């Protein structure tokens, strides 16, 4: 450690520059991760919050709530199946206006007020709004007006933060949801939410009712914009994770070439290869891990500064994972240069070779 630290101190300018680059990459990874998670939450958190493990769609609709239609008989039949608890679910995005005249977008989730999907306090003619709508100024006791049909719905409660397709969720009864949906056809729900036990035969249910039942998380893909956002953000992350080791590797390659004479001297003085490798990896670890931690802190600061202005979510676990992943990527890059560390010829220290 002695030599590694002395070298770091002697070349602190170069290592600080390298550290700054790694810190910025880590910060960028952290910020992009925060936006990825935030956008994801903003798209599917209402689905993730549903206390169900499966969703049954009509067979032709894939996992698209807008295209799916399940009749009441199917919902009742599923609820009667052994090992299954089932309740209808309606999902519709609409627009409304608060009592103070503020326009809001609303993802209306129609649920049975007595069923397992209903949030606390939901009544037959009221609405429980999620935290996002509360942030927009909707209060308990207000009346939310659904613009398209002029329906006035009293706000009876506020639930946790939940959104669907970047629109804050609001929970209403199935009857209210039917009015909001304003369909002229026979009564239909978007899907059926299921809680399945060991005895549940989901495939048999699908065959019997002509439905397509998927795990709850599989329904996320059909949420508006979800797949496209994930692909875009994850592509950026992949490139950042490719860039990080290349940048660190290039720095350590140049650093190793620059100190080839010193490495030859140390080899001539009898330094073991293992010690030189350890010495180099220690320097890399100190710079890369330290800089990644600084970058992580920067990303967290960015998240704190953004507040709720944009969808951003970087919980401590994700932040630590980001710092660890950038550290590993950077160390992998520095490891690419290790062969050069032990290759200088100690014989070059003698005679005219100098």
């Amino acid at each position, binding site marked *: 450690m002695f030599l590694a630290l002395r070298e770091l101190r002697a070349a602190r300018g170069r290592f600080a520059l390298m550290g700054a680059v790694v810190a910025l990459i880590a910060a960028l990874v952290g910020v992009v991760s925060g936006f990825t998670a935030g956008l994801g939450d903003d798209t599917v958190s209402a689905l993730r919050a549903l206390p169900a493990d499966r969703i049954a769609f009509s067979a032709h609709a894939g996992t698209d709530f807008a295209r799916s239609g399940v009749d009441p008989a199917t919902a009742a039949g599923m609820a009667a199946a052994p090992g299954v608890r089932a309740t209808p679910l309606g999902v519709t995005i609409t627009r409304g206006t608060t009592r103070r005249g503020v326009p809001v977008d609303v993802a209306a989730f129609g649920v049975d007020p007595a069923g397992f999907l209903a949030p606390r306090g939901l009544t037959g003619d009221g609405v429980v709004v999620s935290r996002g709508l509360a942030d927009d100024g909707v209060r308990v006791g207000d009346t939310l007006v659904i613009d398209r049909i002029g329906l006035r719905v009293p706000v009876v409660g506020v639930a946790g933060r939940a959104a669907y397709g970047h629109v804050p969720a609001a929970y209403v009864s199935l009857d209210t949801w039917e009015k909001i949906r304003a369909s002229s056809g026979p009564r239909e729900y978007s899907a059926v939410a299921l809680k399945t036990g060991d005895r549940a035969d989901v495939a048999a249910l699908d065959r019997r009712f002509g439905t397509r039942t998927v795990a709850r998380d599989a329904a996320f893909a059909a949420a508006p914009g979800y797949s496209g956002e994930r692909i875009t953000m994850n592509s950026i992350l992949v490139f950042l994770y490719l860039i990080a080791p290349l940048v660190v590797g290039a720095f350590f390659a140049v650093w190793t070439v620059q100190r080839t004479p010193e490495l030859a001297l140390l080899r001539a003085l009898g330094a073991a290869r293992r010690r030189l490798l350890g010495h180099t990896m220690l320097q890399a670890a100190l710079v890369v891990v330290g800089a990644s931690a600084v970058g992580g802190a920067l990303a967290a600061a960015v998240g704190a500064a953004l507040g709720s202005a944009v969808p951003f979510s970087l919980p401590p676990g994700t932040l630590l994972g980001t710092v660890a992943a950038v550290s590993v990527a950077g160390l992998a890059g520095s490891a690419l240069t290790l062969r050069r560390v032990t290759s200088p010829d100690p*014989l070059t*220290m003698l005679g005219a070779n*100098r």
Partner: protein
Amino acid sequence: MTVRTTADLALESVTVVHGTGAARTTVLDSLDLSFSPGRLTALVGPSGSGKSTLLAVAGALLRPASGRVLLGGEDVVPLSDARRACVRRERIGYMFQSGNLLPGLTALDQVLAIGHLNGRRVSGLRDAAAAALESVGLAHRAGHRPEQLSGGERQRVALARALVLEPAVLLVDEPTAAVDRSQAAGLAALLGDAVRGRGRTAVVATHDPAVVEAADEVVDMAALAGGQRPRP
């Protein structure tokens, strides 16, 4: 030829060949040579006569084509690279013509570095390192980095580093090549002091008359190639 048989460092029938084919050159040819403890031996001769090659072979830096290199009675030629590195750091002190010092490290840290390479606790070596610097007259420069030292001072730091762990053998390559006359004489005197009365075997390759003057024995590499013995 065999000069002595009780030495710490001896070369037996050592042959070193450089190059291949038409460029093949025999630099050392079945050389037998031994060096006495407590004496400073100067290797002299024109460039290309094999002085540095002999140091490289004696210092376990270069494996000869044939022959034995005995260090304290142990042949170091067949040892693995890792073992030869261990021999270098534990039993031999080196001082090179140039490039001896690590950039950015103070004189004291340069001396401590050799302890670190040997797995010694640096904190336990500080007094010895300070004493080594004092022995070469550089106690007052302990906190200075290489770029703040003159050529002669850098060589003296290298000498302090070579001696701090009390190695059995000291190998020195052209120590005065990059220093002025006045500093060369002082460096030669320090080399003599580092050897005499300490039971250390020291070999120095040099062109410098001041160093030759300070040596106890002189080996003329050109003459050695012609079969002559070292002259006292």
